[in-house]
């Protein structure tokens, strides 16, 4: 089952902040975040493992709430280069889906000057 992302789209001015949420109905082992620019392949941002850790990539950070099976991606002081579609990917550890990575529908981020 695919994770659910929200919002579907967000428009920001340079320097503004945004939060993208990702939730799953299954107990998760890890959450991945990728960014895809138009016409290109998704590019890895970060992985969060169960344990509630927080990670960062430039001024992009993320958290993972294991109890709620939710992850949030934080875009801080956004830059024009942050524009793209952000996907979360969820991996659970049920015996029939070891390592299976399912992606959400994506959140389109547009950063304007």
């Amino acid at each position, binding site marked *: 089952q695919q994770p659910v992302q929200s919002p579907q789209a967000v428009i920001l001015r340079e320097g503004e902040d945004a939060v993208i949420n990702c939730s799953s109905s299954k107990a998760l082992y890890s959450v991945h975040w990728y960014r895809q620019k138009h016409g*290109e392949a998704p590019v*890895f941002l970060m992985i969060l493992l169960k344990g509630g850790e927080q990670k960062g990539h430039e001024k992009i950070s993320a958290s993972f709430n294991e109890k709620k099976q939710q992850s949030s991606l934080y875009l801080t002081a956004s830059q024009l280069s942050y524009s793209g579609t952000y996907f979360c990917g969820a991996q659970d550890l049920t015996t029939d889906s*070891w*390592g299976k*990575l399912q992606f959400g529908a994506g959140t389109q981020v547009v950063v304007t000057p």
Partner: protein
Amino acid sequence: EAGVAQSPRYKIIEKRQSVAFWCNPISGHATLYWYQQILGQGPKLLIQFQNNGVVDDSQLPKDRFSAERLKGVDSTLKIQPAKLEDSAVYLCASGAILEKLFFGSGTQLSVL
């Protein structure tokens, strides 16, 4: 470091024709995934290989799609016969189990 190679980059076929996509993963990566990405949607997992064995193919339309991974390295994905709704970008990705994925540039398929 060489990335994930995919070919062809673009393919246009008519419905009911067959088509094949090729993927060469990063050397040493045991896990290989094929995803279908329809315009405006997230990547949908079609099949996952661990070395040359299938781990998951629950979302692969097996009446028309097939995939194999020869000797645990290269992989091919085939569609026969193609339908209009198969128009999408087909992404191949590789990685170590439970680690980050590296994606290829994809094959954009148009079925007319």
